[in-house]
């Protein structure tokens, strides 16, 4: 009995032991994971690769906060513990520093860029100074004096960093608590005091952003297609998405190719933007200002084009992927050439493109035309008429529409791809501010979208800022000019007015309050073709809502494009029905409506991927690499000598134990025979 009770007591104590024990992860005690990091990824085109790459097991480097350009010396030459992980603040993220780091990359493990809370003064643009110079219309063959931005440099602040190839990872960190932890770690462990060498243990950071694709697009697409290995591995994907288009008069969508007696005025805008880091592209001035203006103009024209239809149809086109060698517009021109689009190049009368229009200094708006096509007399006459229309409506609205010097070429715009095909009269509207062109700072702060501080969020939605007012004026001007260009009556012009409530969409998109739950602006990066990008669906539905009419049918009928059970599809030639969830005014609950409109999407994949010819320089060949995991972490790292010592001791223990075992086993009979009886071996 006593033994049993002792056993029970021991079992009880043992089980009590487990109550006081909790799970302790050794990993969590060593590493601090970084949240909110944005990497730079690798993009490839027909001949080059750009972007950043890390090693498969992450790049480890000792932290160093760069204080000035002279401090680079510590990283590149004199620092005793290479490789270093350099932390940069905004004023130091310049081309000269990055190129020096790139050239000294054996001592540089990576770069982490701390994003400031407000835009840097003086501008910042990582894009090239001559955007899309090889895919536009200005080549040596078209006009040698205008090629490669010889006449005008459109992005003078451009450092071209987005188009360099780095072999270390570059991440961007938000300036928040995590970054404060990093700075503290550096100050405590790594900072050299009075010129003395910092002693181990040192604070280190590890960044993982291994990219699978390499060399260029033909190589990675070829490796995608290899299918005899056990597990086929895709390494890259083409960039692309969908374009959105709608028309003022329904066009038969099933009949592709040339349409007799149809003359179309194309009103174009771009939907996308990009920055140095992947998936961060607010593009507020470069893209959002343009497409919101066009949406507002389409809304303003709704009544006028239905009541007093002009001779020509107005086609509203929103192109995706324009930042990457005009993916969307080159696709539309290609489809028109191959009779895959409901219209033909012969149907186009003229083009009006709305570029960056959000920041007008002195209310000036520039009306750009192409000097080379204007050498043809008929084209010149049409263009002069377009300019005259624009200037006339601009004067009524107190906007000064200026024509630049006649020899100045077109800025980078989708219209250039139409001109590549044949000379068409057209005008591009721009305001010419490019301080943050295609960078992560092209956000609402750049556009001066600020509210008086005493407003509540609901009141902020109703408030009309100066930027919104300015954009409303431009939208009205565009609407009236399009109506006139399409052959409409002058008497109707005064009825075309853009609604400023529509234009405040630009604020909503840049703040991103109503549409998505994260607290970040809408990402306008075009992304890979298989992944739908956010602005396309948004603009498609907005265009439907603003130019269409509400139908009272069920969701199922709406999605099946019919009005009721017996409806035939052929009745609705030229229209599509879209089911939208919207909150009507004065309420926050969303209800579903079916809207019938002419708004539709069509694919925006570069013709190079359609034809599987990836070396063709005539079309965009941009692809994005795939990756496995992207993350970062910081930890304390010991000196190399200590690591070698630990390894050496371990190996020594191993060898000693092997020797000992061998020794003991060979002398086993002497060592172990004394206490045993010699037994007869029976086996």
């Amino acid at each position, binding site marked *: 009995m006593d033994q049993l009770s002792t056993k029970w007591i021991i079992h009880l104590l043992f089980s009590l032991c487990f109550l006081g024990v909790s799970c302790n992860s050794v990993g969590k005690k060593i590493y601090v994971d970084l949240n909110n990091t944005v990497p730079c990824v690798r993009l490839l085109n027909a001949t080059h690769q750009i972007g950043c790459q890390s090693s*498969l097991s992450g790049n480890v480097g000792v932290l160093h906060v760069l204080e000035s350009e002279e401090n680079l010396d510590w990283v590149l030459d004199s620092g005793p513990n290479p490789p270093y992980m350099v932390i940069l603040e905004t004023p130091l993220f310049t081309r000269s520093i990055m190129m020096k780091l790139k050239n000294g990359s054996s001592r540089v493990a990576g770069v982490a860029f701390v994003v400031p809370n407000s835009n840097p003064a003086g501008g910042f643009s990582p894009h090239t100074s001559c955007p899309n110079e090889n895919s536009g219309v200005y080549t040596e063959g078209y006009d040698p004096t205008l090629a490669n931005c010889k006449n005008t440099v459109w992005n003078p602040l451009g450092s071209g960093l987005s188009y360099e190839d780095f072999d270390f990872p570059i991440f961007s960190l938000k300036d928040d608590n995590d970054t404060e932890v990093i700075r503290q770690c550096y100050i405590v462990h790594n900072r050299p005091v009075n010129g003395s060498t910092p002693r181990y243990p040192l604070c280190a950071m590890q960044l993982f952003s291994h990219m*699978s*694709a390499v060399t260029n697009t033909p*190589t990675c697409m*070829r490796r995608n297609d*290899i299918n005899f*290995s056990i597990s086929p*591995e895709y*390494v890259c994907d083409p960039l692309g998405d969908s374009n959105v288009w709608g028309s003022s008069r329904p066009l038969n969508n099933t009949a592709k190719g040339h349409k007799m007696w149809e003359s179309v005025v194309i009103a174009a805008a771009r939907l996308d933007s990009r920055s140095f880091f992947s998936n961060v592209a607010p593009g507020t001035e470069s893209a959002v200002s343009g497409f919101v203006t066009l949406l507002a103009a389409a809304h303003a024209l709704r009544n006028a084009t239905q009541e007093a239809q002009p001779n020509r149809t107005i086609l509203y086109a929103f192109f995706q992927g324009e930042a990457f060698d005009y993916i969307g517009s080159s696709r539309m021109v290609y489809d028109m050439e191959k009779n895959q689009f409901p219209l033909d190049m012969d149907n186009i009368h003229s083009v009006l493109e709305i570029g960056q229009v959000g920041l007008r200094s002195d209310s000036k708006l520039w009306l750009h035309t192409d000097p080379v096509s204007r050498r043809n007399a008929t084209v010149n006459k049409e263009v002069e008429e377009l300019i005259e229309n624009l200037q006339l409506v601009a004067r009524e609205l107190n906007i000064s529409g200026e024509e630049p010097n006649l020899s100045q070429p077109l800025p980078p715009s989708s219209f250039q791809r139409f001109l590549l095909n044949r000379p068409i009269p057209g005008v591009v509207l721009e305001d010419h501010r490019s301080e943050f062109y295609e960078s992560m700072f092209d956000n609402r702060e750049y556009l001066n979208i600020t509210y008086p501080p005493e407003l509540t969020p609901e009141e902020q939605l109703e408030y009309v800022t100066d930027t919104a007012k300015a954009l409303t004026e431009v939208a009205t001007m565009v609407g009236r000019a399009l109506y006139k260009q399409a052959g409409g009556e002058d008497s109707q012009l005064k009825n075309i007015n853009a609604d400023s409530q529509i234009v405040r969409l630009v604020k909503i998109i840049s703040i991103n309050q109503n549409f998505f739950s994260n607290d970040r602006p809408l990402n306008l990066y075009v992304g890979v073709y298989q992944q739908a990008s956010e602005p396309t669906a948004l603009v498609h539905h907005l265009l439907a809502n603003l130019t269409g009419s509400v139908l009272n049918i069920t969701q199922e009928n709406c999605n099946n494009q019919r009005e009721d059970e017996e409806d035939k599809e052929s009745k609705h030639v030229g229209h599509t029905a879209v089911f939208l969830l919207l909150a009507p005014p004065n309420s926050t609950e969303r209800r579903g409506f079916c809207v019938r409109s002419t708004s539709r999407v069509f694919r925006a994949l570069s013709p190079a991927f359609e034809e599987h010819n990836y070396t063709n320089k005539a079309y965009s060949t941009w692809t994005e690499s795939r990756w496995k995991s992207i993350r970062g972490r910081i930890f304390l790292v010991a000196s190399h000598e200590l690591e070698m010592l630990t390894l050496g001791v371990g190996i020594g223990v191993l060898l000693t134990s092997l020797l000992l075992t061998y020794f003991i086993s060979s002398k086993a009979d002497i060592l172990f025979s004394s206490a045993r009886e010699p037994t007869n071996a029976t086996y």
Partner: protein
Amino acid sequence: MNLERLPNEEKLSLCRKYYLVILVLMPLIFSGGFAFLPFLWLVNVVWFFKEAFLKPAYTEQLLIKTYVKRSALGLLLWVAVLTTWNIIFQHFRAQWGEVGDNLSFTIPLGIP
């Protein structure tokens, strides 16, 4: 199989089999490919080395010696060829572009 328990004639016949089969029969059986498998020659050399050179002489030992020597020669030749090809392939695979990719079974990610 423990060689020590075999009579000498059987040792000779085994050694000869390993040497000849590869030299003569393999090309016939697997026409074009798998000829002269170097690993079987390596087995021959390692297994019969003690028999051929370290044991006191016996009648069959002379023949066993020749077979082992010839197997060793064949093995060395193969090793030289394979090493050279390995070095060339590793060095130039990236530059060969499409040919290099077609020759590879697994292509490493992220490096050329």
